[in-house]
């Protein structure tokens, strides 16, 4: 495919050297079947990891490994300090006022379940009970739907949600009748992993706090791509996940205002989260230990700290600019393709980099299969967002998503691949 003049050109971010970044990611130089280079366009699913992150974990296992918070010996000390330093780094990365407000979980899903469960067990102000309402949106990831379904069902509360406009934006036209005095919790995604839509959080937080509701933000797709300042944001709780931000698997984060976290009952019970244990009853440790039962994902936290260091060295503002540039370029090129429909905003305005689309007459599984044969990795399916798919009358879609290592050449390869897909299935 040749680039014609009508095609929008890619506008690279000054000083952002994608090739140099790519050199840090060992997997990006691997070859796939048929000796094809890997074109990895599935970063919203999970990101790749730079050598710096992998090495930090290896070094810890080889030189420091030991349990944390329990041992007085040199390794135990060093391990505890590395683990707590990771917390401090992550707090700084999201501008949390206090590192003890950063709770390590195993992923974003656990972080969201932590909130939903402790709200169900809370007594007093924060308890969600019969007659109370929880508000989510139709574009949530299943991990921000199911915990609230379980909570509201168990407690006899009601789950409500914001619908979507045809363009894939939140329909906030009825906000005052959706978020009301009955609303106890509003839990919304910051950047949709399917539609790419960015939520107007300010409006939602303002209205929620007006009625005294807690605001939970699923920032799983935001923290990897945007400079995030939880203090400025004003939400009460924010969840995200390590593996999508060049960090390892097995680690997620819940940040919460200490006032809220202090008032909530514990989540899981066990070692480390206690102050004292008697057979008859126990008392709880202060934050953050209270929410970290058992041996935590120690090396994973250290890996996540290395990820945060890596991203910070590049600068999150630049990561965001690159994401925007790549997304704008991809959208403009995809908009050219006949028979291709984008689900979600078709322009790179208030929009993250996940682009889900339909190719008329070819099922997403088949699209991604053909692309895969060309070395292009995209995702096909419901992307854990079945309700949002249903809203647009489809079962599933194909999704391309980008990150700091994505090049415009990879977008070109995708466009090319889609062309071949159409030919293979004799579409148009």
């Amino acid at each position, binding site marked *: 495919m040749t680039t014609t003049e009508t095609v929008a050109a890619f506008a690279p971010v000054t000083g952002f050297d994608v090739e140099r970044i790519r050199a840090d990611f060992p997997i990006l130089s691997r070859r796939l*079947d*048929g000796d094809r280079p890997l074109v990895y366009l599935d970063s919203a699913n999970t990101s790749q990891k730079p050598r710096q992150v992998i090495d930090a974990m290896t070094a810890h296992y080889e030189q420091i490994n030991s349990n944390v918070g329990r041992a007085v010996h040199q390794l135990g000390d060093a391990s505890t300090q590395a683990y707590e330093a990771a917390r401090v780094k992550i707090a700084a990365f999201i501008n949390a006022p206090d590192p003890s407000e950063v709770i390590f979980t195993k992923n974003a899903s656990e972080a969201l379940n932590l909130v939903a469960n402790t709200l169900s067990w809370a007594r007093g102000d924060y308890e969600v009970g019969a007659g109370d309402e929880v508000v989510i949106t139709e574009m949530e990831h299943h991990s921000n739907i199911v915990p609230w379904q379980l909570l509201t069902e168990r407690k006899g509360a009601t789950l409500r949600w914001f619908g979507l406009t045809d363009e894939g934006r939140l329909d906030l036209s009825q906000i005052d009748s959706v978020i009301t005095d009955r609303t106890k919790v509003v839990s919304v995604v910051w950047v949709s992993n399917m539609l790419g839509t960015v939520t107007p959080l300010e409006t939602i937080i303002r209205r929620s706090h007006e009625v005294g509701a807690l605001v939970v933000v699923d920032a799983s797709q935001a923290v990897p791509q945007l400079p995030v300042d939880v203090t400025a944001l004003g939400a009460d709780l924010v969840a995200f996940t390590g593996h999508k931000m060049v960090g390892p698997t097995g680690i997620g984060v819940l940040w919460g205002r200490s006032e809220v976290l202090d008032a909530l009952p514990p989540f899981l019970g066990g070692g480390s989260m206690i102050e004292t244990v008697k057979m008859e009853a126990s008392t709880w440790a202060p934050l953050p230990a209270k929410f970290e039962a058992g041996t935590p994902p120690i090396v994973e936290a250290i890996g996540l700290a290395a990820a945060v260091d890596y991203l910070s060295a590049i600068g999150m503002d630049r990561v965001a600019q690159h994401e925007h540039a790549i997304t704008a370029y991809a959208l403009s090129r995809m908009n050219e393709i006949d028979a291709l429909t984008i689900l979600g905003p078709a322009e790179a305005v208030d929009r993250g980099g996940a682009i889900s689309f339909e190719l008329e007459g070819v*099922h*997403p*599984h*088949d699209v991604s*299969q*053909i692309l*895969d*044969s060309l070395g292009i990795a995209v995702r*096909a*399916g*419901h992307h854990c967002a*079945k309700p949002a*798919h249903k809203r647009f009358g489809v*079962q*599933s879609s194909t999704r391309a998503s980008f990150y700091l290592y994505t090049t415009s050449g990879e977008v070109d390869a995708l466009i090319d691949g889609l062309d071949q897909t159409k030919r*293979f*299935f004799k579409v148009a």
Partner: protein
Amino acid sequence: MDLQALYQEIILDHYKSPHHAGLREPYEAEVHHVNPTCGDEVTLRVHVEDGVIGDISYDAEGCSISQASTSVLADLLIGIPIDQAHGIHQKFVELMQGRGQVEPDEEILEDGIAFAGVAKFPARIKCALLGWMAWKDATVRAVTDLEAKI
């Protein structure tokens, strides 16, 4: 990456024009199966008569592989005695789970042999089996219900 092995002409033909599609009466059991990975769905009805699979009707949403394999399923099993149908089902499952090592028997599987190549694509095996698993579930239910009535 042997795309031709996966997307045999026969498969694409069934995909474009699936046989026996649509939901019909009569039926003794209807099931709804979902592939949780991708959300593909099939609603499938089985009608059993005198120990024979009288009809298989379905409404399926899914990829070429799952659509085509449900179409082939209906072709193969309608009008066949239940026991024999289970045998064919068994052969198809073995072919799918054979990691490409199982030689399919055209006498038994007919158009179904076109799916031999799918077995080499682990992520697509679930697609090929979606309709077949639904059929087995429905048939077991239909037979149990009929027996309960006797």
